[in-house]
């Protein structure tokens, strides 16, 4: 039982959404944070829900590293959310800052996981007992 509990505890980062925060001052949440592509779907095409919450009201901007400009900015707000549709091929990040070149207050990485392979041999059925991986 203990090994199972340990494994479950170690897999807590597997939650379907991810957060980043500095202390409790800013919380940035993105859902989902994992997009899986394979031979039938070569690119990740989905909508991402980005939610932020701050302890203090102010001017905040949410962006990602795919765009040079912020996706949206809020004035005198302490929370907000937006939906961002993307078609991406690789990992990227959502971030929140106070606008312009201000430092990022929180960052969340969206992972694009490739489950296909150009090497057909990787899909061969072995007589490996369960071959489930």
């Amino acid at each position, binding site marked *: 039982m203990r090994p199972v509990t340990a494994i479950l505890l170690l897999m807590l980062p597997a939650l379907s959404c991810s957060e980043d925060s500095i202390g409790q001052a800013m919380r940035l949440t993105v859902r989902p944070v*994992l*997009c*899986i*592509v394979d031979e039938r779907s070569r690119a990740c095409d989905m909508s991402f829900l980005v939610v932020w919450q701050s302890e203090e009201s102010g001017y905040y901007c949410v962006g990602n590293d795919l765009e040079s400009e912020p996706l949206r900015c809020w004035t005198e707000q302490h929370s907000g959310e937006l939906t961002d549709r993307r078609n991406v091929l*690789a990992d990227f990040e959502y971030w929140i800052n106070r606008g312009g070149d201000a430092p990022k207050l929180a*960052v969340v990485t969206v*992972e694009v996981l490739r489950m296909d392979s150009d090497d057909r041999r990787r*899909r061969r059925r072995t007589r490996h*007992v369960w071959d489930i991986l």
Partner: protein
Amino acid sequence: MKICLARALLIYQSLQLGVAAAETPDAATASATASAGGAAATESRWRLGAAFGYGLRSNPLLQSDDIPIVVDLDIAWFGERFFFDNGDLGLTFLDNAQATASVVARVNSDRVFFSLTDTKFVSVGLTGEMLAADTELTVPDRDYAVEMGVELLTDGRWGFLQASAHHDVSGTHEGYEIDVSYGFGWRNQRWYIEPSVGFAYKSEDLNDYYWGVRDSESNAALPAYVAGSGVNYRGRLLISYQLNRNWSFSLAADYERLNDDAAASPIVEEREVLGYFAGFGYRFR
């Protein structure tokens, strides 16, 4: 060895978590994960993983124990030509858009059942007749066979097909096997479902070596038996949910129906070989 590896994996994962926790406080850029492994990442030649959970595979042999599975390792390396895949050694001589063909050396799979058998003294024969005295009933021992052959892989939107023909090169059974498998995988983001079916033709020599009973092995409780060739059929269903980049949860169910001649052997008690496994899989990426 399997338990040691499991511990090593847990330690490795713990270290990863420790690093993430240490980075988080100071970092405006404290992303939870590294950004390696996207589409642009080069595929590693290694494929390493392990599954932890519980599974069982029934043993069709008389007086045998089912085969428990708690840890399942996946160790493979794929080079330009050569590859190693969980005990199989291969040399690829054809690889194009339509198909991949390799010469493969492997170990026969029928032998796996013969490791978990018991010896009993019985007073009743296999057909129900009373024996004159208590008689030892033992499933004969069988050796692993090294087989070499050709394997063809092809795939498309219609699924994937694998065909192979292998002959014994170790002088163990001196027979051959022809195997064909077809499968189809559906993915909906984290969910993956893959049913597959297949059959394996086993030559007379192969079948008789593993499932026959030699005169020298027979007694009042275990009659001699000669097995001819036959075809095994099998089906499999895999359901998997990807938890994150490395971890997944999988359920697998497996069914194999032994060929007529193997099933009729006096050392075989059950014709169907059933299996299941449920557990967490870790893949190094």
